[in-house]
């Protein structure tokens, strides 16, 4: 369960047996080619895998360097790469004979994906979501409920993602016999990072085959945003063995790496080590695993910030911490402002709407594409679609018509009694 210095399984004794079983089932599933086939079939018939690799001709022309390809995880059912992981874990739950799933969610995407999986497999489903996120992400809460899930607002701590994770663990330690905890990213105690990465590698395997078919050779660089890191680990795995492919992770730079309002755990380290009072990350152990955490010098976790709720997290995949430490993955960060600009450019140039999370990867790719030779190619992992983020995006763009629309709707609901 370790990746270099990172990872492990720091779990309370009450869950020891549950993890033992989970490890056993996971190991067995990994060794069973029929399981992977079942997974690929499910993703092909229920989601729309393989997702396309789109050549962004207008962006390529604009930057005048490498051919820019976009891996279209936004076209998955439920709108993001999250589907890969939840459907895979759903099959595993079925194999374990459990009938209930729980999950944490921040922005709500993993919650919607898990609720969707639960509906499809006929599982009971409870989603833990920070109360602040419940308020901010009401549309996702609405869909989760309509999909049949119970959404529990978490009122502890910062009332956001990390607290939802803690609360999901609390449910699990009480109900481990019936329940599987569907961890949403390549974090948490072993075997979660390994398991989520295993399901997500479908992205990289497809992408490698697709870029060889479309471009004739490997890409020079692959860009992916990094919150927990599941979409990045997903696509990077297709190219880990190909040393000539540079892998670039992009964290949430928030209001800037020296602002104290960001969620960069790795990119901030070399640049801000000499500045005072910045919540740069240091090694730590929380939420069941060891990685670089944004914490104070007592080890208390800090508040984080990003315009993209899905990147707004204290920790990072132990796998990525290791790849970063070993120099295999270069970590960078994009600020909120850069993200909004890249999003606007991607929309108007290619007719695609990246999620705010994914737009981080676009920022870095846009900065570098022009330096690369026109014979080379790069891949950006578009981990999700942005149209679900309308409340955040329209707000961030300060769109006056949107504000007027919401104001008018709000007044309508203010007057009219609920009938």
């Amino acid at each position, binding site marked *: 369960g370790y990746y270099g210095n990172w990872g492990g399984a720091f*779990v*309370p004794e009450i869950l020891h047996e549950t993890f033992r079983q989970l490890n056993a089932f996971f190991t067995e599933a990994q060794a069973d080619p029929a399981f992977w086939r079942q997974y690929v079939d499910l993703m092909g018939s229920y989601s729309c895998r393989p997702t396309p690799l789109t050549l962004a001709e207008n962006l390529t022309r604009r930057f005048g360097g490498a051919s820019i390809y976009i891996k279209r995880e936004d076209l998955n059912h439920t709108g993001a790469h999250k589907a890969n992981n939840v459907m895979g874990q759903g099959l595993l739950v079925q194999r374990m004979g459990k009938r209930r799933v729980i999950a944490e969610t921040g922005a709500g995407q993993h919650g919607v994906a898990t609720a969707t999986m639960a509906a499809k497999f006929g599982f009971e489903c409870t989603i833990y979501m920070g109360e602040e996120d419940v308020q901010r992400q009401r549309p996702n809460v609405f869909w989760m409920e309509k999909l049949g899930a119970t959404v529990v607002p978490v009122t502890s701590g910062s009332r956001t993602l990390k607290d939802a994770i803690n609360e999901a663990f609390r449910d699990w330690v009480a109900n481990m016999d019936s329940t599987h905890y569907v961890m949403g990213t390549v974090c948490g105690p072993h075997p979660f990072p390994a398991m989520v990465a295993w399901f997500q590698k479908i992205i990289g395997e497809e992408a490698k085959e697709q870029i060889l078919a479309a471009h004739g050779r490997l890409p020079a660089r692959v860009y992916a945003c990094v919150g927990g890191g599941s979409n990045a680990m997903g696509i990077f795995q297709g190219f880990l063995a190909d040393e000539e492919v540079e892998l670039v992770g992009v964290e949430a730079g928030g209001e800037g790496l020296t602002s104290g309002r960001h969620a960069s755990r790795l990119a901030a380290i070399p640049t801000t080590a000499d500045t005072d009072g910045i919540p740069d990350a240091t090694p730590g152990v929380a939420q069941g695993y060891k990685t670089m955490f944004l*914490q104070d010098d007592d080890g208390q976790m800090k508040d984080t910030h990003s315009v993209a709720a899905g990147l707004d997290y204290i920790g990072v995949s132990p796998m990525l911490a290791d790849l970063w430490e070993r120099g295999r993955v270069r970590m960078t960060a994009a600020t909120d402002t850069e993200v909004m600009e890249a999003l606007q450019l991607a929309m108007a140039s290619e007719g695609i709407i990246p999620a705010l999370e994914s737009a981080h990867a676009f920022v870095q790719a846009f900065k570098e594409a022009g330096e690369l030779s026109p014979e080379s190619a790069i891949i950006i992992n578009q981990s999700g679609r942005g149209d679900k983020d309308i409340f955040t995006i329209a707000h961030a763009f300060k769109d006056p018509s949107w504000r007027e629309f919401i104001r008018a709707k709000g007044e309508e609901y203010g007057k009219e009694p609920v009938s």
Partner: protein
Amino acid sequence: MSLTQQIRQAKADREILLMTHLVLGYPSFAVNREVIARMVAAGVEIIELQIPFSEPVADGPVILRANQEAIDRGVRVRQCLEFAAEMTAEHQIPFLFMTYYNILFKYGVEDFLAQARKVGVRGLIIPDLPPEEGEEYLAACRKHELAPIQIFAPTSSDERMAKLAGHGDGFIYCVARRGVTGAQTSFDREFDDYIARCRRATDLPLAVGFGISNRADVEMLKGKAEIAVIGSATIRLVEEHGPAAVTEFMEGLR
């Protein structure tokens, strides 16, 4: 005298011992000070001092909130160490630290345990540190003669219990049931079987915690465990009735 010996000695006079718990700095060190004095006066044998952590995954809502309010009020690890030094100097019963691993890890495991020893604490309970992840911790505990309290759970297999016991010292903390701290526990046949399994797995004294909140609960544990652990119940009591209520509550427990 080792913690284990001290427990056995105390047990000679009592049908069951009491271990209580509080969160350092919640609602304040001043209240902690009064509560501890009342607990000691009421005959409590061991006290767990929880160093607050921002992500207390094994704790239920009452202790969780206490952790977070303490941090919000600016409680620092160094203050907790100083306060422990004051308590161990003041009171003659054994004190333990309870906290999560990151507090030790961030401080430096070796340094933290050296400090713990220095402030007079006798052992530690770290619920998110299984022995597989705790090699450095276990070695440093041995070095500094601190008891690394191990935890049994109803879900632990016999084999697992044996392994845990091998790493333990002082006593074994037996989690009474599935779930987190602060909820109800029922003492049924299944519970008795569980305690019997615990007993077979170790020679160390057994402390039973999670959901022990009144005299009846403590009564049920007599003859089964050496120590009854009162956790969330005291925090709730102090929140509702103030520190003065602790004396009567503690005296009424057995």
